[in-house]
């Protein structure tokens, strides 16, 4: 049984705003299935007494004091943007016309 279906890959691609063609979906579905199956082997050694973990290091409570640090200049901040107008980042239309 496969670890991830082609439909699931298509769904994830849509959520990630990736336009994948039919051939790419076939190709990636197979590859992702291999990757997930490989990673899933961890389950074979993880016993019930080992809690699932999300971080590699046993650290907690890494905080910083509430202090202000210098920001980027506006020129620097905007310099990386594909488009700007005046003092702001310019982005394409967000929603299509109301149906």
């Amino acid at each position, binding site marked *: 049984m496969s670890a991830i279906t082609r439909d699931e890959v298509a769904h*994830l691609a849509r*959520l990630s*705003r990736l336009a994948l063609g039919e051939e790419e979906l076939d190709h990636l579905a197979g590859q992702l299935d291999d990757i997930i199956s490989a990673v899933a082997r961890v389950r074979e050694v993880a016993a019930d007494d080992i809690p699932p973990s*999300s*971080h590699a*290091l046993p*650290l*907690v*409570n*890494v*905080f*910083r*004091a*509430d*202090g*202000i*640090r*210098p*920001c*980027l*200049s*506006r020129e620097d*901040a*905007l310099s*990386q943007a594909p488009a700007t*107008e*005046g*003092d*702001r*980042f*310019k*982005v*394409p*239309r*967000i*929603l299509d*016309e*109301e149906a």
Partner: protein
Amino acid sequence: MSTTTTGPMGYDEALEAYEPVLGLETHVELGTASKMFCGCSTTFGGEPNTQVCPVCLGLPGALPVANAAAIEYTIKIGLALNCSIAEWCRFARKNYFYPDMPKNFQISQYDEPLCFDGYLDVEIDGRTVRVEIERVHLEEDTGKSLHVGGSTGRIHGADYSLVDYNRAGIPLVEIVTKPIVGTDRLAPEVARAYVTELRELVRAIGASDVRMEEGSLRCDVNVSLMPRGSSEWGTRSETKNVNSLRSVERAVRSEISRQAGVLAAGGRVVQETRHFHEDTGETTSGRSKEEAQDYRYFPEPDLVPIAPDRAWVDRLRTELPEPPSVRRRRLQAEWGLSDLDMAAMHNAGAIELVEATIAAGAPAADARKWWMGELARRANEQAVELVELPVTPAQVARVAQLVASGSLNDKLARQVLEGVLAGEGEPDKVVEARGLAIVSDDGALGDVVDQVIADNPDVADKIRGGKVAAAGALVGAVMKATRGQADAGRARELILERLGVS
């Protein structure tokens, strides 16, 4: 999907047929100096995109570090809401594509909120209603978009949008209630009282300035209806960003009427986001939520878990301020007010203002009189909250002092307040610029008294003959001649002195 064209049902009629179930999600921007995960300033109103850095812009390689003060404020809010504090919890990535977050995800919390299972008691008409709290979690605020083009400046129909990321990354606490049932026709008042109480509590903790007009406290209002006697909840709508206490109440009321109209006509309520319009008090449909959002939450890999040590939590508990409801009872006793008077002050948002005015040197009765009288009247005229009036407790205290020392009477004091509200400066400056001080020096006042006696020989004779009460008429004439600026007590003394009856 069927659409019904019937209008909303009257509120009373709606409540006869249906019972409302409420839910409130409140977002509070914390008052930390720096953002949640970087050192950018959180000051409101800065020039666009001047409070940004690689972390809050999501530039490659930048790593977030959590702000300790924001964690402490969140735990304090949770404790004040009688919540349990998580022993261990994580931040989570909420993935979505919307340019108000430059990273394409928001750092939030998912199934491991920092605080959970609490309650807040609110009082309505002497009855206590317990609002249960589902969770209190910490996340980051989004940037602000300006929509350009289209006819209305709204997002729909816009050609493109311009984004300012100064607000992106400011710590934001989300407080979510459990479904609130059994409020019946008091639902709008309960919603308002809850947000009011929550705002006072957060302000007392010092976690935020909680200014709804600046967006540092925002409320989403969920409403559903079920037929009377039913135990199965209806479909809810979610009205977003309701930005004043008055609007919270109006939004609940208008959704009850609207949904009742839809249901009574045989339609069905759509699960959707709605927008509240301040001008009409009504809501309109936003994007539909029928296709469930898939945010693909997962534990934030760039931030390690939070495990609040119990000693730390206990210390934060000892730092909590007196709860607002306890404080109100104490102040009511100190000020010697009836339940009714205290409730009126609470509803008007006058308690902090009066307290600050007393602290600035005004007698309690005077502080209350000015805020609940003249200033409440002016706030009402302008349809703003008392706190939004451009006058400070210190200025009101100064006016009260000028009255107490005899430099002003109430009529002149009202004119001084008018001047302060009009932006003419401090009370003393207004007194001077408008020439409002009471005339009590005997030279100027004596001349007026002599003139008034000469103009009213009959009255003067009566007073000489022992009818001292008639002096009131002459005092009135003196006040009229000085356009209210005479010291009435001193004028009376001078009149009696001149007429040989003192």
